[in-house]
């Protein structure tokens, strides 16, 4: 069902954990639906210098979280804003159709954490105007 990449990230997820003094925290998903992603960002000079996640969810949710953190670590905020769910899924060599919502959740976790950073720090981030962190990714597929 899953690509080897997904399985590899599921079994050896990168950047698991919390950041005590995170600059931005995103928390998306819903235990009812069986997936929650929490993402912690450390941001310095517009750059994501550290990122950690915790995820309650299926294999592809964990792999998507792991891949998302890899994709944004060391990147600027703008670069991180450009990471789409398709990029996450693509980097994992694809996800089964019924699992695409996991990659959407990962994209939302990033944006949600950036929104939190923006609100806490007062730094404006282009592209977050229309972002609604409570939007349900399960409706997307």
């Amino acid at each position: 069902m899953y690509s080897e990449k997904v399985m590899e990230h599921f079994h050896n997820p990168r950047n698991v954990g919390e950041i005590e003094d995170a600059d931005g925290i995103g928390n998306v998903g819903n235990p009812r639906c069986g997936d929650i992603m929490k993402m912690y960002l450390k941001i310095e000079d517009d750059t994501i210098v550290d990122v950690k996640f915790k995820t309650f969810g299926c294999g592809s949710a964990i792999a998507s979280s792991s891949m998302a953190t890899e994709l944004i670590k060391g990147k600027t905020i703008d670069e991180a804003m450009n990471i789409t769910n398709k990029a996450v899924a693509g980097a994992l060599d694809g996800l089964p159709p019924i699992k695409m919502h996991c990659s959407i959740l990962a994209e939302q976790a990033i944006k949600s954490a950036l929104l939190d950073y923006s609100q806490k720090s007062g730094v404006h981030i282009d592209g977050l105007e229309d972002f609604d962190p409570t939007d349900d990714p399960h409706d997307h597929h």
Partner: protein
Amino acid sequence: MKKLIYMDNAATTPTRQEVLDDMLPYFNIQYGNPSSVYSLGSRSRTAVEKSREIIGNMINAGEREIFFTAGGTEADNWAVRGVAYANKDKGNHIITSKVEHQGIIHTCEYLEKQGFAVTYLDVDEYGIVDLEQLEESITDETILISIMFANNEIGTVQPIKEIGEIAKERNIYFHTDAVQAIGNIRIDVDELNIDMLSMAAHKFHGPKGIGALYIRRGVKIDPLIIGGGQERNRRAGTENVPGIVGMGKAIELAYENLDEKNEKLIQLRERLIKGIFDNIDHVRLNGHPTKRLPGNVNICFEFIEGESLLLSLDMEGIAGSSGSACTSGTLEPSHVLLSIGLPHEIAHGSLRLSLGDNNTAEEVDYVVEKLVGIVSRLRAMSPLYEQFKGGN
């Protein structure tokens, strides 16, 4: 490759070697069509009839009351739709439960769209149907009660005898989906007043693609698959002769030494439950503690999600299943776990390990050991666990 520890016998079972051996000649030596006049055909016919007789004997039915199908789902569909259509002049009401297999639930929903009324009985925290509600639900329009013998997820065994008595007293047909029970529990259709009963060979070490519906003589039921005159005009299509032969052999073997086998299975089951409860906290046993299938263990591990548990177990060579949404192909966790009152997030974290004759105590201990590590690793990753600990 590591040896597989297969603990998903409720999903399907390997075909036993003796069963396969009996089937083999019917593929390319004794391959005649049972409807054919010549000897090659009538020898196939004889094999089919012998299997029918064996299966009938096992549940105290006549061989003329056993009809072969392609599996459990077809048998379920046939029983419910066949009785509904054949008896709609008598009434349009069907009673079933909230914890039935989809083969029943979705068939009932389909009939609702066609004007039938269906009552889905509630179950208690163990998954046992409410007999009072059953009695109260019966109306003059009620033509069928369909309640499963034992639940495929949580293993709970229903009070079939009581249901059969109620059905008989009120003169209503009683169907039971015994797909999980056959081969594990001794069943006497007369003693239990069962009018129809579904079975599937692949659940008791027979082949996939073959099942049967027991139909008590005299039950008014329409056919589901129409065409040639096979199965005495009640289920058309060239008979799956190897499958039928295999099913007969498999049921025979399943009921051989059943009590001994079950005693062993129950011991393993209790060892597995105890191992998990002794070593992992925040777990709950789903289903009834004693009124359950001998090999069924179903446990929720709080704060983690079932599919990731399964994938982790698979890495360790352990095969199990889960009622999480991610494994059901829908976005909802198991309707059975929700029906026994579990909140969604806990239902997502269920694990079913269904033991079979091939499992050993060593395997059980190995599984417990691996589960301890996997659960703690997944919980360490879980924001729900973090939140829970924070809250404590």
